[in-house]
């Protein structure tokens, strides 16, 4: 078995990182995790976001319950080599 945690996140704060010439080379983003949403994996309800979900290792297609205010609309992941205290973390962003 393997472990997954899915988050619905919103950007709380974004700070661009620039090099010596002032060029943006990256960003520091602080996310805020939002409310619990229903979690659908392979079409089945598998609980909610913000909790560690136990699943068979392997390929899974993930999406969230309504409202459809997040991106991407669905995500395919390969879940393996996790433990209950270090689950794979997947993030949907609120739009």
């Amino acid at each position, binding site marked *: *078995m393997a472990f997954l*945690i899915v988050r619905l996140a919103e950007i709380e704060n974004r700070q661009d990182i620039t090099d010596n010439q002032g060029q943006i080379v990256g960003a520091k983003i602080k996310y805020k995790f939002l409310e619990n949403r229903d*979690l659908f994996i*392979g*079409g*089945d*309800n*598998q*609980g*909610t976001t*913000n*909790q*560690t*979900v*136990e*699943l*068979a*290792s*392997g*390929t*899974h*297609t993930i999406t969230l319950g309504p409202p459809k205010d997040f991106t991407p609309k669905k995500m*395919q992941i*390969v879940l*393996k080599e996790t*433990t*209950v*205290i270090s*689950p794979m973390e997947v993030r949907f962003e609120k739009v």
Partner: protein
Amino acid sequence: MKKFKIKRHWLLSLTLIGFTVAACAHYPKNQPLAEPAALSYDFSRFNQPPNADETFVVMAFSGGGTRAACLSYGVLKELKNTKLPGTDRSVLEEVDVVSTVSGGSFTGAYYALFGDRIFADFETKFLKRNIQGELAGKVLNPYNWFRLASPYFSRIDLAAELYDQTVFESASFDVLAQKATRPFLIINATNLYQGARFEFTDPQFRYLGSDIGSYPVSRAVAASSAFPFLLSPISLVNYAKPAGYELSDKDQDALEDYWNNKRTYYEVYNNYIYAEPQGHAKHPYMHLMDGGLADNIGLRAIYDLYVRADIRSKINQGKIKRFLAIVVNSKAENPAKIDQKESPPGLMTVGFKTATLSLDNYSFETVEVFKEMVAQRIQDQTTLKDCQQIINAKCSNNFKIPPLAGGDIKLYVADLTFDNIPLEPPAPGIKGRKYYNELPTTFYLPDDQVDNLITVGGWLLNENPDFKRFLSEY
């Protein structure tokens, strides 16, 4: 001369009738699926009684002929007599899934169809009947010789007819689907082509473009108990899929898992070869035999539900608070005393051993794998709690580890086998282990042996440490 002419006419007429009977004899085909409508005989639809998920009880009934049917019946009987502490409900009322193989399929199917009526008439309708004698009588009936001459009708079809008329009252899977009341029955057989487990459920029939609704339960039980050589396979037609048919998202993901999870991959791939667009042309038929060839315990179906299907979903949704698996394994010891003689065993003994050794080893491993999986969940729950305690004690930032979906579930696996019985009789009415281990795998046992098996089924349940713990922690 006239006498000879009359005889010749009789012979000719008889031959003609014989050919007609043979030409008409055909096994009842599974029906094509008209449209990919909502699933009917599927566990997801079995939601009665209300709050059925909180205490989730699954049962696996192994193969082993009448011996297996009696033992599983004895366990059912004891579950009915055992009340859940502090309630007026019996443990039997909490049974949600029954997965069966071969001899165990008779008890499981009868209980799923007729409920508590099993305790009134199953002993006379099945357990105490000489089923194999009746079947032999059918084979010896000259009318059936002509039917058996047809390439599309064989001994297993005679067996299915017998079960249909005398045990299962011509019930089809529609009867079970309309009840939609738990327990959900999973009858297991083996697909001879791949050696893969085949279950008589709607999702499995969909891979064949077929509707399970009209399919007789008796034929499923016959397939599940079609012991190689004694009985012939049950055949199913793989139809072209109706417009709009497509594999589920979950199956499509699994087909990408060859390198990530071969167990999941093959579970779906073995069905995909029938379900793919040209599957009906490449594999137009499927032939099924005894479920014991793929899994003689019946636990693999429950394993699959637990790992990647409905039980997993219910755990993650927090619907299940306690989970009990009761494995009724009627495996007996092979009576061949091969280690008593210096000369090597003969061809028959070696053949029998070769056929059953790997089956027994696989059955043992199936139970152990399931137990380890359940133990791992308990360990994960404990690990999470322990880590949080260490964080609470050592860190000041109030960090909370994300909770495990489903929370702290209580899980138990009660593995009931003759090996649990001491060598010496442990209680009045219970014999020593050797007695049960030497009972043959047949479809006839004398009444006293039937009674002894029923009694020991109840004893095995009550003496099982995990079942005792389930009751005491309820």
